[in-house]
């Protein structure tokens, strides 16, 4: 498996899109840190950008990469190697390359300008976001034969998690306004990897605002070490479950 991963990483790292992605992130990070008077505010702006751009690029790039590799994947399947190994190698290869691009584009500037607990958490969460959306992209790709449709589904998934889901949450929170809805809100956020990442980061940053208003349930559940751990476990589930489902499907799929 290592052999395939190595070659896939080498291939992706030479792709213009991935180089452009790293450069784009780097430019955004540097601009944000240089424009904002305090690194704290720079970090805050960066969080918003990371939570929008990283999922979008991750899901679209990996969907396209999988579709473009279709014939190559067929060739690999005709080689004496397990399908599971091929699929995992693709996942890990894409993940490693995209995470590297993220670490260069966002990680480096954060380490230079704002190397503290929040900065490190941002890097961890950004990498987890990358892994999550590649995992989701591979699930979408394995279920749809058509390339254009696959990319469309990818964009829709991104739109769903970044916007539509939150609209739905807003609607629910107003519908059940008269009840104790803290727990509902907490469960709902766990169902969206972008939301859980955002809250993980915000609890470290704008903690006062969150703590003051949403009350004890949130603080108890998400504040502190245990909360960070819960959030990270939730994100790991978001990586693991789609990947596992796609792996199962790929094992049985007619290419």
């Amino acid at each position, binding site marked *: 498996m290592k052999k395939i991963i190595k070659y896939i990483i080498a291939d992706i790292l030479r792709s213009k899109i991935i180089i452009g992605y790293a450069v784009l992130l780097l430019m955004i990070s540097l601009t944000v840190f240089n424009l904002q008077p305090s690194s704290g505010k720079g970090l805050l702006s960066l969080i918003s950008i990371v939570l929008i751009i990283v999922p979008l690029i991750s899901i679209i790039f990996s969907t396209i990469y999988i579709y473009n590799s279709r014939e190559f994947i067929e060739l690999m399947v005709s080689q004496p190697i397990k399908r599971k190994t091929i699929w995992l190698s693709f996942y890990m290869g894409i993940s490693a390359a995209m995470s590297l691009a993220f670490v260069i584009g966002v990680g480096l500037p954060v380490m230079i300008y704002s190397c503290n607990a929040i900065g490190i958490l941002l890097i961890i969460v950004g990498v987890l976001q990358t892994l999550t959306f590649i995992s989701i992209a591979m699930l979408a790709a394995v279920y749809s034969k058509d390339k254009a449709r696959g990319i469309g589904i990818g964009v829709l998934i991104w739109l769903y998690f970044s916007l539509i889901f939150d609209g739905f949450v*807003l609607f629910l*929170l107003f519908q059940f306004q008269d009840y104790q*809805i803290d727990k*509902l809100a907490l469960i709902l956020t766990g169902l969206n990897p972008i939301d859980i990442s955002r809250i993980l980061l915000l609890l470290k940053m704008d903690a006062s605002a969150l703590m003051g208003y949403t009350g004890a349930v949130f603080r108890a559940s998400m504040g502190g070490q245990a909360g960070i751990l819960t959030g990270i476990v939730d994100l790991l589930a978001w990586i693991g479950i789609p990947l596992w489902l796609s792996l199962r499907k790929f094992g049985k799929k007619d290419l």
Partner: protein
Amino acid sequence: MENLTKIVKPIILILSLLLCCYQPGMAGIIKVTASQPSFSIQQALNEAQPSDTVLIGPGQYKVADLQVNKPVSIIGEGLPVLDGQHTYQILSIHADNVKVSGLKLQHTGISSLRDIAAIKIYQGKEIVISDNIIEGAFFGIYLSKASRCLIENNQIIGQQQTDQRSGNGIHAWKSDQIRIIQNRISHHRDGIYFEFVTHSLIYKNLSQNNLRYGLHFMFSNNDLYIDNVFGQNNAGVSVMFSKYVTMIKNTFRDNWGDGCYGLFLKEITHCKIYGNKITGNTTGIAVEGANRMSIELNSFSENGWALKVDASCLMSRVNSNNFTRNSFDIVTNSSAVAGNFDHNYWDKYEGYDLNKDRTGDIAYHPVSLFSMIVANNPTTMVLFRSLMATLLDKIEKIIPEFTPVSLVDNHPLMQALPI
């Protein structure tokens, strides 16, 4: 505001000097020592003539409700300890012109029926209480119907108990012309509590880690508090049902948690809030019902909500303040808030200044739609800084529909003020 301080400072100095130097002539001295238990402090107080000094030597004294009925000075030498044995009040003052200084007072009784204090003034004037340490008292210093008193340089540490088992650090009721200067108060229910107190000054005190408010005003008019620090109190500072209270150059910081404020104002009129630093509070200043209030030259930073005003605020001015790094700058529950919000610096302002007059050319609406949604339904805070919330705010900026049109800064500053 600088001018105000310049005027106030000398007045305070002259007044405190006058009182400190006030020594009645021809006074006798009565000494009490710990090694001579046969001659108690109460006996000394009984024997003393008006204007005498009772000098208490170092050591431990177990006391029970010492009564001071004449104008004497009670001075500690080498910080004698007066212990109320967890049962009694320590000093009860029923006379004018009493001075209490250099004592350590500890372990008063705790009662749910009586307000037991380390030092309690029952109707008196010209009383000075200075340089004492009060530890583990139910109430620290209790003034009722007192006037022209000075409470200075005391250290008052409560017992870190529950609300019911803890009294206030400095408690004043129906008093007038009280000066509370440079005291350090912590771990009480309210650090300083004023009820029906008028024409009084609170200056350079540090009130922190109290169970409820760092400072609490009720029905107290024409008071001034300057240069105090209120930090990490459970609920911040509260000024209620009061008129003509002026608050200058204080620091309100780190009052975090549910229902916590830097400064909470309720039903007040003609109050002035100048040059304060409001930092790191869940809500910086919350106002419920204010008339002719002015908030000027303050710095609001790193608060969850910098300023919360409700619909019943009339004819108020919020001018020349800095709003930086707050999660939300202004929030209101109503779309009709009356007041003037001009000439503030908002770090969220994205306008430009083409005519170089140092104010932005387009007006700034500091209330965001999302902050109003949260004000209506607090749990929606889970969507804070989501794309959804950002989009709602942007759309609202373009087509204002819900946010108050009248709450606007027509001349937002481009640069922060040096506060």
